[in-house]
C-alpha cells in the first residue's frame, strides 16, 4: 500500500461518514425525551414462573455461590420458583445503565444515579407494589422517594441503603481517621496512596467535603451544583489528583490494595473492607464527620421483560426478611425490610448500620442523577447536568 492509497482510504472513510451524518441530521432525535413515559404496571396476579430470570446487580447483591460457596441466595430462589437465574454484576451505575439500555435483563438493582435515567429513558416499567407482599415491611423512610417514584408512580422496590465510607489501611493509619481531609488536602500523609471512585458521580464526594469546609459556596445538595459550586468541586478533584494511587472501579482490586498497604485511604464500600479483611483485620471503614455520599438502591423491572412473573417473584424474594438480612450483612449496608433486623446473624447489625436511625442518614447523600433544574429547589440558577459531570470527569481523568 502506497502513501497515497492510505491517505485516500482515510479521506474516503471520512467523506462517507460525513455524508451519512449529514443525511441523518434532519431526522428527528430518537430517545432522550425528558417526560416520564406513561406506562402501566403489571396487573397480576403473579402466576407460574417463566423458568428464567436475568438479573443485573451490584456485586454482592445477587450472590450465587460463585464468589463464596457459603454465600448463595440465588440457588434457594431457583429451587423455590423454578426460575433459572443468570446474574451479571456491574461496577458503576453508568455500566448498569448502559447494559439496561442494550436490553436482555429482566431486573436491575439500580442506585439513585441510574434509576431516574432508567425511568425517563423508558427502560423500566412501573411496579405494582401490591403484588410484592414484603413491600409492606419496608422502612417507610425508603418508600416513595424521588429516586424510586415519579409522579406518584412506584418504579421499584427499595433494597437497602449504605454510605460510601472512608476505607483505610490500619498499618498506614495508626488512629482511625474522622475526616476525609487526607483524601483531599495537598499536605496529606496518604499522598500517593489514595483511592477515589472512578466515576463521574464521585464529583459529589468533593461537593460533600466542600459543604463542610467551604460553607460560603452554599452547597446544600451535592447533586445540585451550579457552575460556581461545580467548578469548586472540580478544582478540589484536581487538587486530589497528585495524591491518587489508583481510581477504583473494581472493588476486589481496591480491597487488594488496601490490604497490602499500597492504598492508605480510599472511598468505598463496607463490602470492600470485609473482602480485604478475609485474612486478618487490616482495613477499617468509617463515615467521617463531613458526611458521605451513599446509595439507596431499588430493584426495578425492565420494560420489555419476558419473565414478568419470575421478576415479581424475585422482587418479593430479595426483600424478604431473611434474604434481605443476609444481603445487608454480606454487603455491609442497612436492610430495607424492617423485619430483617431481627434475623441478622449479628444481632447488632441494624444498629451498626443505623438502619432505624433516620438521624444517621441526614448527612448521607444518596446518589442521584444531577439535572439542569436544580434538585435543591433553586430556580434562580441552572445546575450542571449529568452530561457535563461526565465530560468534566473524562477531562479530569485524562489530564
Amino acid at each position, binding site marked *: *500500500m*502506497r*502513501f497515497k*492509497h*492510505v*491517505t485516500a*482510504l*482515510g479521506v474516503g*472513510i*471520512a467523506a*462517507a*461518514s*460525513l455524508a*451519512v*451524518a*449529514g443525511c*441523518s*441530521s434532519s*431526522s428527528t*432525535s*430518537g*430517545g*432522550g*425525551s*425528558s417526560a416520564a413515559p406513561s406506562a402501566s404496571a403489571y396487573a397480576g396476579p403473579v402466576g407460574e414462573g417463566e423458568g428464567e430470570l436475568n438479573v443485573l446487580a451490584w456485586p454482592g447483591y445477587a450472590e450465587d455461590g460463585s464468589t463464596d460457596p457459603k454465600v448463595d441466595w440465588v440457588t434457594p430462589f431457583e429451587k423455590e420458583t423454578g426460575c433459572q437465574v443468570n446474574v451479571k454484576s456491574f461496577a458503576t451505575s*453508568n*455500566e448498569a*445503565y*448502559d447494559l439496561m*439500555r442494550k436490553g436482555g435483563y429482566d431486573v436491575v438493582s439500580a442506585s439513585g444515579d441510574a434509576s431516574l*435515567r432508567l425511568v*425517563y*429513558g423508558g427502560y423500566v416499567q412501573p411496579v405494582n407494589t401490591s403484588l410484592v407482599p414484603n413491600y409492606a415491611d419496608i422502612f417507610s423512610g425508603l418508600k416513595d422517594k424521588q429516586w424510586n417514584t415519579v409522579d406518584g408512580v412506584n418504579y421499584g422496590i427499595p433494597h437497602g441503603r449504605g454510605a460510601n465510607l472512608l476505607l483505610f489501611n490500619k498499618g498506614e493509619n495508626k488512629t482511625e481517621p474522622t475526616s476525609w481531609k487526607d483524601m483531599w488536602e495537598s499536605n496529606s500523609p496518604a499522598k500517593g496512596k489514595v483511592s477515589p471512585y*472512578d466515576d*463521574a458521580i464521585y464529583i459529589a464526594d468533593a461537593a460533600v467535603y466542600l459543604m463542610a469546609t467551604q460553607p460560603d459556596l452554599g452547597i446544600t445538595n451535592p447533586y445540585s451544583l451550579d457552575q460556581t459550586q461545580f467548578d469548586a468541586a472540580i478544582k478540589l478533584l484536581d487538587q486530589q*489528583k497528585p495524591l*491518587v*494511587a*489508583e*481510581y477504583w*472501579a473494581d472493588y476486589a*482490586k481496591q480491597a487488594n*490494595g488496601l490490604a*497490602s498497604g*499500597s492504598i492508605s485511604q480510599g472511598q468505598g464500600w463496607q463490602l470492600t473492607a470485609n473482602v480485604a479483611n478475609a485474612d486478618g483485620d487490616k482495613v477499617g471503614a468509617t463515615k467521617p464527620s463531613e458526611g458521605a455520599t451513599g446509595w439507596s438502591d431499588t430493584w426495578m423491572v425492565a420494560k420489555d421483560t419476558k419473565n414478568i412473573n419470575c421478576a415479581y417473584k424475585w422482587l418479593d424474594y430479595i426483600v424478604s426478611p431473611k434474604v434481605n438480612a443476609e444481603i445487608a450483612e454480606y454487603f455491609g449496608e442497612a436492610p430495607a425490610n424492617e423485619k430483617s433486623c431481627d434475623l441478622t446473624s449479628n444481632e447488632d447489625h441494624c444498629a451498626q448500620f443505623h438502619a432505624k436511625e433516620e438521624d444517621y442518614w441526614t448527612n448521607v447523600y444518596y446518589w442521584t*442523577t444531577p*439535572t*439542569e433544574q436544580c434538585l435543591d429547589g433553586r430556580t434562580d440558577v441552572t445546575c450542571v*447536568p*449529568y*452530561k*457535563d459531570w*461526565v*465530560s468534566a*470527569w*473524562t*477531562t479530569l*481523568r*485524562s*489530564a
Partner: protein
Amino acid sequence: MTTTEAPAGSPAAFLYRHPRARLTGLLALPMTWLVLLYLVPIVLLFVTAFWTTDSFTGNLQRTFTLENFARVLDPSQPFLTTALRTLAVAVSVTVVSIILAVPLSLFLAKIAQPRWRPLLVALVVTPLWASYLVKVYAWRTMLNPEGGFLESTLGFSTGYGWVAVVVVLTYLWLPYMVLPVYVGMQNVPPSLLDASSDLGARSWRTFRSVLLPLVKPAIIAGSVFTFSLSLGDYITVQLVGGKAQMLGNVVYGTFATDLPFAAAIASLTVLIMIGYLAAISRTGALENL
C-alpha cells in the same frame, strides 16, 4: 479426448471460460466480510462521532454536530495530550520490543543449534498461550509496590504507572515482534553474512550494513503489531497504570455515557494508525510484507 474431461456444460467448464465468475466466486466471501465487519463499523464510528447525546438519559441524538471533535482537538482540553502520551507509549513499546527482539531473533535464527530452534521459538511464543487477563493480573501482583514479587525479591518495583504500562505491554506484544523478525533473519542467506565478513566487515558492521537492512521489513511488520496493539490497549493501563490513562481508557470510560465523544476519541486512534501506516509505507517496507 479423455473420459475425465469436463463436459462442455459443467460448472468447471463454465468457470474456465469466465475468469470474472471465478474471481467473483473467490472474493465474494472475503469482500462481504471486509465490507460488513470492517469498513461499515469504521464508517459508523465516524458517523456517530458527529452526533450528540441527551444530557439526562445519555441516549443518542442524531443531530449533526462538530462539538465532539472540537472538544477532542481543543488544546485547553487534555485529550491531545492523552493522544501524545498514548503515542509515546506505543512508540516506546515498539522500540523496546525491537531492542529485545533483534538480538533474540539473531540468536534463534543464526546461532542456536538448528535442532533446538523449534523449542526455543515455542518458548518465546508460550506467553501467547495464556489468557491476556491472567498475564496482566500476574504483573499487577508482581508490581505491587507493597510486598509484590519485584519489591520483595529485587527490593525495587516500578509501582503502577507509565513505566509499568510500557513494561507489561512489551511483555505482552514481544512475541508479535520476535516471530516476524526471526523469520526475516532466517530468510537472510548465511552466505550474505559470510560475504560481508569475507569483505572485511566485523560482526557489528555486518549486522548494521547487511543484516539489519535486510530484516527491516520484518521489523516494520512486527512494529505494526506492537504499535497498533499498544495504541488500542486500555486493560493493562487500568491494571498497572495507576491513574494513568490512554486513549482506550477515555473511550472505555465514556462509551456508556457519551458514545459520540467516545467515537470521536476512537477516530483519533484510527487516524494515528493511518498516519503510522502512511509513514511506514513511505519507507517502502509494506511492499515487502
